[in-house]
């Protein structure tokens, strides 16, 4: 066990930091134009700090995969405060999927522009009647000449109002068993017949959308991974999504922010941190953050060694989301009456971010596999307990 970096990696980490700091003038700020964002992303790809391991032929940097390099790059962005490489569902979910199961024409057409930020994507998976039970989706696509014609509704499509394109699960074989009748389609959000309605949540913001399809025509060539293979294709990408939630860096940053808040705010003349009951909760959460951070280091090492992460990986989403939620809860409780202010209220602290997170995090606990589904996964895959039993026909 050794948390120190070897000289080669230490030099690499230094090099990334230096590059980012040297190019500070090109960092796109909050109001940056799309052109500026694309320019910065293109720079990052060239330097190898974005799309690092994606083949150059498809617009990536083409380096060999190296998990530790990737981690050092990510840390350099966090430490320097440089705007990170473009994320989003196109980069994180569609690109890996195309690399794995797309045909050559699809790879050529979509990966490069997606990586550079020229095309923004949204994901059309969930439906009002198909959440945890995604395979029961009912958005239909019937064949008509060279096209599929799509009718139905998607929900939780977070960037639908901004996206150029969508990757979408539709039922093309209504008579097949439910997992076999699904296809994975990609098409433009400008196709006639698509309506996007913002879906407002309890935070007061529309973080998601509903997307309605009425006779939307999509060429049959736009299927990825083969007709009827959509369930398998989607599971390739869902795997990627589950790894994204529960980053211990975020929890560490929250903990630091709450500690600062509790040192600075007072009630009745006493600092909040001097309230022993609140301080004990802070310490308890610090212990959990430290545990998740150490677990993250362990996972990184398992990855580096090519060993299976096992339970240490399966529990990250459940524990990480809950921890973030508990951190927000402590911040609200420490703020006391101020912890309920919201919107543009006078005396609002930290722009209401804790109130917003407390609510939004509940969505994260539910989304991407509810806590109950996560527990099923841990029990079945991690502990080998029986799968949910088949029910008798009733």
């Amino acid at each position, binding site marked *: 066990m050794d948390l120190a970096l070897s000289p080669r990696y230490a030099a690499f980490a230094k090099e990334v930091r230096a590059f980012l700091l040297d190019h500070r003038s090109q960092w796109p700020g909050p109001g940056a134009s799309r052109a500026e964002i694309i320019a910065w992303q293109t720079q990052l790809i060239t330097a190898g700090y974005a799309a690092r391991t994606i083949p150059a032929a498809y617009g990536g940097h083409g380096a060999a995969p190296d998990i530790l390099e990737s981690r050092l790059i990510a840390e350099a962005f966090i430490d320097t405060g440089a705007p990170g490489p473009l994320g989003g569902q196109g980069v994180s979910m569609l690109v890996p999927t195309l690399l794995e199961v797309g045909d050559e024409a699809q790879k050529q057409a979509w990966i490069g522009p997606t990586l550079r930020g020229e095309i923004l994507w949204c994901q059309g998976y969930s439906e009002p009647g198909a959440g945890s039970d995604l395979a029961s989706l009912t958005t239909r696509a019937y064949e008509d000449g060279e096209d599929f014609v799509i009718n139905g509704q998607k929900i939780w499509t977070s960037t639908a109002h901004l996206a150029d394109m969508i990757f979408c699960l539709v039922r093309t074989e209504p008579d097949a068993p439910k997992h076999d009748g699904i296809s994975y389609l990609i098409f433009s959000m400008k196709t006639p017949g698509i309506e996007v309605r913002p879906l407002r949540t309890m935070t007061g913001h529309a973080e998601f959308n509903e997307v309605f399809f009425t006779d939307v025509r999509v060429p049959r060539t736009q299927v990825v991974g083969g007709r009827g293979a959509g369930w398998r294709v989607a599971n390739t990408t869902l795997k990627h999504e589950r790894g994204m939630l529960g980053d211990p860096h975020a929890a560490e940053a929250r903990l630091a922010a709450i500690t600062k808040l509790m040192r600075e705010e007072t009630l009745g003349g006493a600092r909040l941190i001097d309230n022993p009951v609140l301080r004990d909760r802070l310490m308890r959460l610090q212990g959990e953050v430290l545990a998740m951070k150490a677990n993250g280091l362990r996972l990184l090492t398992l990855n580096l060694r090519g060993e299976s992460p096992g339970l240490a990986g399966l529990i990250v989403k459940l524990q990480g989301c809950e921890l973030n939620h508990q951190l927000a809860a402590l911040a609200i409780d420490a703020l006391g009456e101020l912890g309920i202010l919201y919107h543009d*209220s006078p*005396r609002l602290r930290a722009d209401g971010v804790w109130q917003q997170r407390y609510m939004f995090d509940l969505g994260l606990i539910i989304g991407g596999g509810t806590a109950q589904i996560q527990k099923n996964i841990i029990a079945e895959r991690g502990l080998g307990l029986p799968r949910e039993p088949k029910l008798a026909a009733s």
Partner: protein
Amino acid sequence: MDFGLSEDQRLWQASLSAVLQHVAPLERVRAFAAGTEPVARDVWSALAEAGAAGLLVPERHGGLGLGLLDAALTVEALGGQAAPAPALGVYLASLALASAGRESQQARWLGSLASGQALAGVGLSEAVLGGRDGAGVEVREGRLSGRALFVIDSAAADLLIIADREGGLHLVEADTQGVHASPLTTIDLTRRWGEIVLEGARAEPLGPSDGVVLSRLRDAAWTLLAADMLGASQTLLDKAVAYAKERRQFGRVIGGFQAVKHMCAEMAAALEPCRALVWYAAYAFDALPDEASLAAAHAKAHLSEVSRFVARTATEVHGGIGITDLLGLHFWFKRVGVDRQILGGPESVRDLAARLQGLDDQAA
């Protein structure tokens, strides 16, 4: 020996429920939350007509002269409907005036509070919890100066009951010179909270400044906030159970999954004793003076904990739809979120509960 609601109280609950379903359905709640009305006059008028406004006003002043339990049942119903109604301010002001007001003060205000025409704001926060952001009110030569935060129902108030830093209470007319009110917007848009700036405003003292009236108002406020949480939490549980019976995934209603069943059972198990606790606190307020403050504190603190659990769990039972605006579940979620913090989160209130029993370090 009878620890249950009277026939009159049950009838009152039923008629209140009918009124609220008619006058404050979810669409009305939504409209109020989305708009800028300082008060939902239609809702309060209907409630006042049914008798809700004058519950705590003595009969000789045109009210019903009932007890805090009746007020708690009413606030419970309001919480259950997430109804926009300035009941807390009216009830607390009625109590303050009836118990500590001079005859002239009572004559001036109690009748119009009971009829629903007058509304009241009540500011106790700094006196109960301590001040922040320089807030707190001082008395100089009978005039008030300073700042009161989180004043209950202040948005459309005609009179204000304000506690000073020493625990004395004061009656201030809202349109008096030197009184400036501005809104504090919270996550819960079904009720309005405000900040009152006082600049040498004329005020009348309300009762002796020995803190006794303040304690009584605090106890009543804690109990009524607990009642609001009880009603809102019961609605959250009811909605979760109803949804679990109806929503299908994996070929069956989700309420058939043991995980979902147990989430519902845990909510019910935690919430059901809360009903009796709120009754007990309200009853104690009028009948058991030695136990009243402790029972009120525990009702407030315990309902705060249980409601947070219920709000979160009911949302989880709903899955994704629970966090959207579509079903409006969040109105109740936020309602209990605000009730929890107003006049002290559970940690603060429990600390006060310990002090009430001489269990703090100072009493060593």
